């Protein structure tokens, strides 16, 4: 069961819709340990993605190109801290699936592994530093495990989303070592990282859309 180009394109619409719904929730997560703007920034960035994708020629079928277009538009016009991070992540993800018009289970894992790598590279982030990486990294681990165990795509995706959720939630008890919240020391503890939360929304919307489960917009 391979995932076609159209599903991936649709995923970006679903991400945007989910982010719009969670805009204020993400701003509010950013208030106690940041500057209250994460929902704005991330929503605006994925609006730019949508615009860029909508400009692709209708015959375009290269998923790598699609992801790289998304990444480029976030890098160039996203701004904030999340811009270079999401942007680089999608660029790197696009590179590993370059030329593919549909994604196998292997491709999907490679894609997210590259995505995680992009964040780590751009943000110098490691696990446990209270960033979006803490959502993505455990998800990639779960994906790799499912792949090795030969699990079904739908199970694989469900478990990946769960791992991402647990990853996001794990940031609550962490001391921040990256980004704006890293200046708070002990005071950063006790709050979910906004970037970890937006990453969870991105991951879930993306993955659920692939599954043809419909929009998958919740929260």
């Amino acid at each position, binding site marked *: 069961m391979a995932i076609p180009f159209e599903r991936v394109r649709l995923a970006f619409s679903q991400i945007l819709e989910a982010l719009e719904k969670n805009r204020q929730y993400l701003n509010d997560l950013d208030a106690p340990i940041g500057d*209250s703007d994460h*929902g*704005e920034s991330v929503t605006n960035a994925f609006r730019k993605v949508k615009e860029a994708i909508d400009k692709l020629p209708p015959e375009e079928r290269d998923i790598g190109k699609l992801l790289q277009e998304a990444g480029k538009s976030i890098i160039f016009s996203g*701004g*904030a*801290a999340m*811009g270079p991070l999401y942007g680089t992540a999608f660029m790197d993800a696009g590179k590993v699936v370059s030329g593919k018009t549909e994604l196998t289970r292997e491709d999907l894992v490679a894609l997210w592994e590259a995505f995680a790598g992009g964040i780590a590279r751009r943000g110098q982030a490691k696990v446990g530093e209270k960033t979006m990486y803490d959502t993505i990294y455990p998800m990639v681990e779960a994906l790799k495990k499912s792949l090795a165990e030969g699990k079904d795509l739908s199970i694989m995706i469900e478990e990946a989303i769960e791992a991402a959720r647990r990853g996001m939630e794990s940031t609550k008890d962490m001391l921040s070592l*990256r980004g*704006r919240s890293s200046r708070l*020391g002990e005071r950063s503890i006790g709050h979910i990282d906004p970037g970890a939360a937006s990453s969870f929304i991105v991951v879930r919307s993306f993955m659920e859309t692939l599954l043809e489960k419909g929009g998958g917009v919740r929260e």
Partner: protein
Amino acid sequence: MKKFINRPENVVEEMLEGFVIANAGKLRRLPTERVLVRKDAPVKGKVGIVTGGGSGHKPAFIGYIGKGLVDAVAVGDIFAAPPVQRVYEAIKAVDGGKGVLLCLGNYSGDVMNFGMAQELAQAEGIPVESVIVNDDVASSPKDRMDNRRGVAGEVILWKVVGALAEEGADLAKMKEVGTRAVFNTRSLGVAHTPCIMPSSGKPSFEIGDNEMEIGVGHHGEPGIKRMSMMSADEVTELITLQVIEDLPFQSGDEVTVLINGLGSTSLLEMYICFRKVAQILADHSIKIYRTYIGEFFTSMEMGGFSVTLTKMDDELKRLMDAPCDGVHFIQH
């Protein structure tokens, strides 16, 4: 929401439109991006200076465009670093053949976006250096200075490198002196009232009727600790002593003092607080070389102020004394 705006999503765009009309004699906007540049940019034979960051800090950043200050500002959304493209366009617009210096606050968003733009411009053969401001002593202990955020001290950097560029200095020299100015600069702020985020109409932080936050960032980020309101003298002493100890500033030093209002704190209060700063510096036998008091780097209508000290040397003195003609920062 008690704010005079139209649709929240248009705040930055409409502000820029007003700004460009009002200051058309001094600057222009690039046709493609949210970048404002000095009217006569690029200035041949002068290193270009690009700064930028989120909006909501007016007069920073765009109020510092002008002769003797910065050449271009890449404008971000409210409290959001400008995206790479804007910084990149800004660099290209002000390169007068001697390269470009980027001045930015130490925020991961700014560091990443400016950094990527710098790489792009360098790849096209434009020499680009950057100086990153990290003057806020509250934002990390001294052994993690590279993690400290930049606050009002960035004004000092603009003044210094802006003057140096007009003198015809080269890029290496500007980076060297700018870095020294930043190293010699330490700040600490206090706030008692949040700003209202235009997007949501919500306050940037919650705070009690008799509380204040010491070491707050100028996007409303929390600081070192929450305390009960104090008198002007008490709070000024609390923050000034920490600033002095951090460098440390020492007996015999000469300093520039910058008292920066964060938004709604009145000049009346700032002068009362400055009076105490002056007493404390006198007690430490630290001499005031220049003084700036006003709103230089705000957080919209946040209530509070910060104290910035910069240790002077002969070169920094000359540069601080040089005239400049920014939109909101003018010196004869």
